[in-house]
């Protein structure tokens, strides 16, 4: 019945099956929204965060999904600024994913603060020395940019394009899109960094504190790099998942290997710098602040293995996979590599947020762990569900993969 909404020439499952697919996610969303409501109405005592674990699951996952969402701006950057036209095949999908990641993150942040009503104070009494101010500023603006980038994709829908005013607006937006891509890239570079700075500047936390260049600690630059490196990997992996779920070929294979190649080079640079930074920190920064770096890894369950996993297993390994032209030809390797790379950035964000807080600073304080409450988990799952639903709708009714129909005709011909 919704056939007239679907672009001609693409195959989509029946409305019934589509609804069946949406139902569980909608339920999840409902439960999550309930939990979210609890946190807003009854307050953050609904979570398991505490004075020591001032940040918990939410901040960790926010940082993670924002890093993964970097695929959006980076692909845009490569396409519009560096003119890598092959990436046109994934840019729409990347933008939608970016939009989902950022809007989700912002949503969770709104619940995470104790007084959401006062969120706007940051724009009113900004403390320009705070990394969080940079983050707030950039993320809000970049979310607008993403929304604008999302608009044309939406307006190109088969029915919407029939509305003349939409049509012309879309056309005009399309013309100025490079401006937004540029702005978006600028903002994203900036706030990915600020998110890193968030922890790097914590002088009171020897485990997180890093020296820096100018006003920014090294984590500022490492976060940018790791985000850039994993962004394409995540685009790759998400595209692959979509094509598996929808049982369709969506982009030409060489796009995949291009993404992997980009990711690989950035990853190897990142791993290199990260290792240098870690060594400097272990041998200079931490001792200078009177800390004994060995103690950072003295506590189970977070021991040195975590460091190894973060840098070697989930950093170096995928880089090597991506950099070998032979492996890049095999989808299996591409996916393994991408998953490892994405895992790497997630673990990195975990270490910066959770491990930092779990380590004691005072000699007589205990090491602490924390487990999120069901409200925290549900709230986050709501965001996931929201993402899946929004993406499914976009995929069904909008053109996320321009090459899809072409490839399909090719399939039809053979």
């Amino acid at each position, binding site marked *: 019945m919704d*056939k*007239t909404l679907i*672009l*001609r*020439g693409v195959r989509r499952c029946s409305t019934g099956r589509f609804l069946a697919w949406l139902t569980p996610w909608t339920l999840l969303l409902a439960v999550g929204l309930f939990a979210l409501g609890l946190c807003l109405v009854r307050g953050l005592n609904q979570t398991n965060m505490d004075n020591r674990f001032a940040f918990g699951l939410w901040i960790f996952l926010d940082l993670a999904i924002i890093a993964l969402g970097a695929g959006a701006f980076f692909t845009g950057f490569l396409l519009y600024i560096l003119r890598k036209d092959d990436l046109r095949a994934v840019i729409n999908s990347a933008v939608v994913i970016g939009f989902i990641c950022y809007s989700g993150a912002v949503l969770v942040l709104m619940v995470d603060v104790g007084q959401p009503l006062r969120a706007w104070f940051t*724009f*009113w*009494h*900004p403390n*320009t*020395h705070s990394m969080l*101010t*940079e983050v707030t*500023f950039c993320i809000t*603006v970049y979310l*607008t*940019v993403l929304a*604008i980038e999302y608009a044309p994709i939406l307006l*190109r829908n*088969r029915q919407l*394009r*029939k509305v*003349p*005013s939409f*049509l*012309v*607006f*879309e*056309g*005009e*937006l399309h*013309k*100025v899109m490079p*401006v*937004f891509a540029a*702005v978006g890239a*600028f*903002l994203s570079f900036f706030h990915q960094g600020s998110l890193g700075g968030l922890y790097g500047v914590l002088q009171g936390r020897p485990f997180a504190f890093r020296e820096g260049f100018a006003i920014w600690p090294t984590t500022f630059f490492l976060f940018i790099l790791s985000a850039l490196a994993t962004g394409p990997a995540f685009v790759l992996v998400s595209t692959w998942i979509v094509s598996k779920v929808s049982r369709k070929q969506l982009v030409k294979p060489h796009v995949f290997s291009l993404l992997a190649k980009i990711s690989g080079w950035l990853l190897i640079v990142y791993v290199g710098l990260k290792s240098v930074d870690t060594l400097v920190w272990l041998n200079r920064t931490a001792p200078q602040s009177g800390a004994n770096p060995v103690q950072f890894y003295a506590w189970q369950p977070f021991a040195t293995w975590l460091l190894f996993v973060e840098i070697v297993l989930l950093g170096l390994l995928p880089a090597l996979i991506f950099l070998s032209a032979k492996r890049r030809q095999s989808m299996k390797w591409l996916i393994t590599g991408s998953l490892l790379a994405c895992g790497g950035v997630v673990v990195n964000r975990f270490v910066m947020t959770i491990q930092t807080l779990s380590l004691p600073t005072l000699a007589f304080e205990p090491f602490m762990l924390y487990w999120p409450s069901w409200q925290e988990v549900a709230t986050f799952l709501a965001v996931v569900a929201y993402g899946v639903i929004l993406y499914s709708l976009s995929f069904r009714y909008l*053109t996320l993969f321009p090459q899809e*129909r*072409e490839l399909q*005709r090719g399939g*039809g*011909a053979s």
Partner: protein
Amino acid sequence: MIPGVYEFSWSAGHIIFLGIFYGVITLVLATIVVASFRSLKSGRAGRAEAMLWHLDFEDLSPEARRCRHELSGETRSRECPNGFDCRRCAVHPQFLAARGESADPMEEQRIGGFLLPADRSYHRGHTWVRRGDDGEVTIGLDDLGSHLIGKPDQIDLPAPGSRLAVNGTAWELLKNGSSIRVLSPVDGIVLRHGSPGDDWMLEVAPADDDLSHLLSPSEARSWMLREVERLHLSLSTGFAGGALADGGVPVDDLSTEIPPGEFDQVCGLMFLQP
């Protein structure tokens, strides 16, 4: 944020940082404003139709976008950059020049079972244009088009006096639940609707006499061959192959034969609507 309010005061940091931030915001807003302003303007200028075609043309598959001179074998593969409006094309005149005088066949021909009368020129959206005696032209669906649609469930023609633009909407059809826009082959003003007896749909007073963007009957031949092939390929079922390949007279309502699941797509393909 306002200096003096609750002893707030600016520092260099504020100026730089807030400068950048609010600069970016202004840029974003400005761009949106510009975009909407320009869209308003072009909306007033009624460029919507043109843009729609522009969009659609972009979304067409490459095979659908071949240049007419590739079809006629005058050049190796070339994709049309002008949205099938040869009047805007730089190279089209050269091809015509190179072609020299070749008289159009005077008798009608049958390609893949579809008639191509020689007294008219053809549009790639399966419409034709026939010059009348006193300047006005008549427009109608070509044989493939009308076979494909058969008897439409509904048809709405533009009121007399309304303006047509090349590649804009000529009229719209409804058939088997899928709506089809028939692209107009000419610029002009609608004079009259054809009565059921006629083979034409609209009588139009053309804006100018230049119909060079349309296919001459001789070009139409190779084009129609390609179209039949595309139609053929687009159908997963074997029947069309059988009926059409041998040039036998096709069933006059193909739509009844095409599997309903594919009809909409076939129409999109033939009438150049993604």
